[in-house]
C-alpha cells in the first residue's frame, strides 16, 4: 500500500547520519580534499556509530540493514560531503560484496577484520566496478573471467576504484568469458600481490579527491577459483553491484540537497538592488526547480531500494530492480550535477572561489560519472 513515510527506526538512523554529516564530514571536507583521504580520527568516529559496519552480528558487525535505510544514510553522508561519502561507501563495498555474494567460509575469512573494534576502523575495502568502456551500469562490465580448471584468468581494466591502492580487501566485478547479461557477472577477491595485475593511483582528480582511487589493469592475472565469491548463479554479484548503484544514487541526492540548501541560504542573505536575491524570480525559480527535480529523483531511488529489499525476500527476479537501480543512479547523478552547477550560478562570483564549497561540490558531482 502506497506510503511515503519512513519508519521511526529509519528516522532515527537518518538523524544520526545527519548529525554525523553536519558535524563531522562537512567541516572536514576541504581538509580531506587536500589530504586526498579521510583522516584516521574521522574513521574511528564513524566506526563507533556502527553505520559503517552493517555486517552480520556473528562476525562482530552491527547487523545488516535494508537498502532503503542505507540510501538514507548515503544521502546524509553525501549531504555532508560527497568526497568523504564516496570514500566511506567505497571502502564499505568491499566487505559488503563479500557479505552479499560470498559463502559462509569466505564471509568468515574476510569480514571480521572490518568489525574489529580496535584496528578494524583503519581497514579499507574496495569494489572495482567502472571500466574504460562506460560507467556504473552492469552492461558496461567487460573485464573477463576465464575459468580454467581450478583457476581463473582475469583480463581487463578497471577505473576509479576507490581505495584501489591501499585496500585490504579488493573485490572486482567481472564477467565469465563468453556470457552476456547480468547472469554472467561474478565478484572476485583479488589477492594482495597478484602477478598480472598492475595498480596505479589516480592523481590530479577533477573531483572526489577525498576518495583516493586507482586504475587496475589485469593482464592474464591468474587467481585460484576459491577467490570467486559464492556459488555460480547465486546472484550475489548482481546484488552487490546494484547496491553500489543505490548508494551512489543516495550520495548524489545528498550532494544535490547540499547544493540546494547552501544556495538557498546564500540567496536569502545576499542583497542586490536593495532586496535579497531570493526575492527575484530569476533566482527563486532556479532553486524551486532544483528542489522539484531532487524530490523526483529521490522518489525514484526509494522505489528502487524498496524493490531491491523485496527481491531479497524472493518477491521478484533481478531484472526489475537492476533496471530501477540504474535509472535511479542516472537521475540522481544528473540532478547532483545540475544542482551543484546551479548553486555556483546563484552564488555568482563567490561560487567560483574556494571560500565556498559549491565549486568543490560541482567537481565532485561531475566525477560521479
Amino acid at each position, binding site marked *: *500500500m*502506497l506510503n*511515503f513515510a519512513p519508519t521511526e527506526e*529509519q528516522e532515527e538512523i537518518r538523524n544520526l547520519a545527519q548529525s554525523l554529516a553536519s558535524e563531522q564530514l562537512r567541516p572536514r571536507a576541504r581538509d580531506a580534499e587536500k589530504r586526498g583521504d579521510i583522516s584516521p580520527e574521522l574513521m574511528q568516529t564513524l566506526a563507533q556509530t556502527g553505520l559503517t559496519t552493517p555486517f552480520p552480528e556473528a562476525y562482530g558487525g552491527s547487523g545488516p540493514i535494508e537498502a532503503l535505510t542505507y540510501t538514507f544514510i548515503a544521502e546524509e553522508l553525501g549531504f555532508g560531503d560527497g568526497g568523504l561519502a564516496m570514500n566511506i561507501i567505497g571502502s564499505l563495498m568491499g566487505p559488503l560484496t563479500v557479505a552479499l555474494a560470498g559463502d559462509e567460509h569466505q564471509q568468515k575469512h574476510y569480514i571480521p577484520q572490518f568489525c574489529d573494534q580496535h584496528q578494524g576502523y583503519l581497514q579499507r575495502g574496495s569494489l572495482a566496478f567502472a571500466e574504460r568502456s562506460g560507467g556504473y551500469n552492469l552492461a558496461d562490465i567487460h573485464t573477463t573471467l576465464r575459468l580454467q580448471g581450478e583457476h581463473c584468468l582475469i583480463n581487463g581494466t578497471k577505473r576509479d576504484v576507490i581505495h584501489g591502492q591501499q585496500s585490504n580487501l579488493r573485490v572486482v566485478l567481472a564477467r565469465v568469458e563468453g556470457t552476456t547479461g547480468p547472469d554472467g557477472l561474478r565478484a572476485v577477491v583479488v589477492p594482495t600481490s597478484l602477478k598480472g595485475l598492475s595498480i596505479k593511483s589516480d592523481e590530479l582528480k577533477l573531483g572526489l579527491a577525498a576518495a583516493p582511487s586507482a586504475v587496475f589493469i589485469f593482464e592474464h592475472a591468474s587467481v585460484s577459483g576459491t577467490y570467486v565469491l559464492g556459488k555460480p548463479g547465486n546472484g550475489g554479484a548482481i546484488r552487490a553491484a546494484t547496491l553500489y548503484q543505490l548508494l551512489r544514487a543516495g550520495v548524489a541526492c545528498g550532494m544535490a540537497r547540499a547544493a540546494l540548501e547552501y544556495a538557498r541560504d546564500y540567496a536569502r542573505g545576499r542583497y542586490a538592488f536593495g532586496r535579497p536575491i531570493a526575492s527575484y524570480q530569476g533566482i527563486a525559480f532556479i532553486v524551486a526547480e532544483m528542489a522539484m527535480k531532487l524530490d523526483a529523483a529521490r522518489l525514484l531511488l526509494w*522505489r528502487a531500494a524498496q524493490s531491491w529489499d523485496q527481491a531479497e525476500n524472493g518477491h521478484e527476479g533481478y531484472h526489475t530492480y537492476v533496471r530501477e537501480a540504474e*535509472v535511479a543512479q542516472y537521475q540522481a547523478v544528473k540532478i547532483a550535477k545540475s544542482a551543484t552547477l546551479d548553486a555556483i550560478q546563484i552564488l555568482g562570483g563567490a561560487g567560483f572561489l574556494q571560500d565556498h564549497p559549491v565549486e568543490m561540490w560541482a567537481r565532485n558531482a561531475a566525477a560521479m560519472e
Partner: protein
Amino acid sequence: MIDFTLSKSQQANRDYAHQVALEEMRPISLQCDQTEEIPESFFWNMQKRFWAGAAGQARAQAREENEPGQGSLLTVLSQEEMAWGDAGLSTAIPGPGLAAPPILSNGTPEQQMKFLGPYMDGQLHWGALALTEPGIGSDVAGMSTTAVLDGDEWVINGHKHYITNGARADLVITFATVDKKLGREGILPFVVPKGTPGLIVGRIEQKMGLRASQTAELIFENCRIPKENLLSGREQSKKAGFKAAMGTLDATRPMVGALAVGIARAAYEASCEWIHEELPKGYPAQKRREMEAELEEIRQELEMARFLVWRAAWMLDRRIPNSKEASMSKAYAGGLVMKATAAAVRITAPGENSERKLFIHKWFRDAKVFDIFEGTAQIQRLVIARRLFPEVDIP
C-alpha cells in the same frame, strides 16, 4: 514504511479506470474532439460505472482492508488512466467534480449533505468551480466579483470565465469578495445553483485542445442566493475563504498532474508502438537509437512525475500540508506532458497519416493547457519558491 506498491483496492481502482478508458473513451475520443460534443450515452455509462458500481465497491473494499482516508490517492490513480483514455472526456464525467473540494473543506456537515447528497440520486449531475475572472488568474486576491448581503440573501455580481462544465453544472462554487478593501480576507466561497435568476451562461470557448471538455463563461447579474449558501467554513478564521480557494488548488493540482501523466503516457506508448510497427524501411539506425534514448528518458520522467503526484495525494489524504508538493507534481507533470507529446509528434512525423497520428496530434493539443491551468508553470515555481523561502517576499 515507505512503499511504492499498490494495495488491492488501489490496484482494482486503477484497473477499473483503465478498462473504462479503453472501452468508453478511446473509441469516441477523436470524434468528440472534432465535434466538441459528447454523446448522451457516454454520460449515462459513466454515471452507472462510477456512481452505482465500482466506486461504491472500491470504498467498501478500502474499508475491508482498513485503508481509511485514501480518497485523493484513489482519484489520482484513476485520473491517470482516464486521461490516458481522453483527458477532455474525463473532465465531463458526471459528479460534483471541482465543486467537491471547497464543499468538503469549507462546508458544514449540513451543507455537505445538502449540496453533495443529490449527486447520489442516480441522475446526471455536474458541479463547477468559478474562480478565474477576465484579468484575474492565480492572483485570486485581486478578484472583482462581489457578494453583498441583502437581508437573508447574498447578491452576487461579476464575471467569471474558463469554467469547466460551467454550463451544465447543477452547482457552481463561486468565489466572490464581500469587501475589496479586505483583500484576500474578503474572499468567500458561495454555492450558486443552476437556474438561479441572474446566473447567465456566456460563451462556450473554442480551444486548442481538451475540446470535448466544456469551458464556459458565467455572468452574475444581481444573482440572489440564500444566506446559507455561503460556505462559511468550519474554522471561523477571517481568511477562511481565501484559504478554501488555495486549499482547493492544493487538492486539485495533484489531480491535474495525474491527468498530465496519463496523456504523457499515452503519447509515450504510441511513440514506442510506432517505432516497432511503422518505422519506414531504410530509416537510419542511428536516428532510431536517438529516438529510443529520448523515449527512455521520457519513460523515467513519467515515473518520477507519477511518484510526485502520488506523494502529493498521499499527503492530502493524511492532511499533511502539501502546497509545495502539489505544485511540484503539477509543474513536473505539466512540463513532461509537453515534452512527451512534442516528441511523439516529431518521432511519428515521417509516418503515414493514420489514426495513431491523429491521436498524437490531439494529445499534443490537449497537453499545452497542463502547463497553464490550475496555475501556470511559472505560478507553480512561485508557490514552491515561496515555501522554500518563507521569510522572503517574492513578488
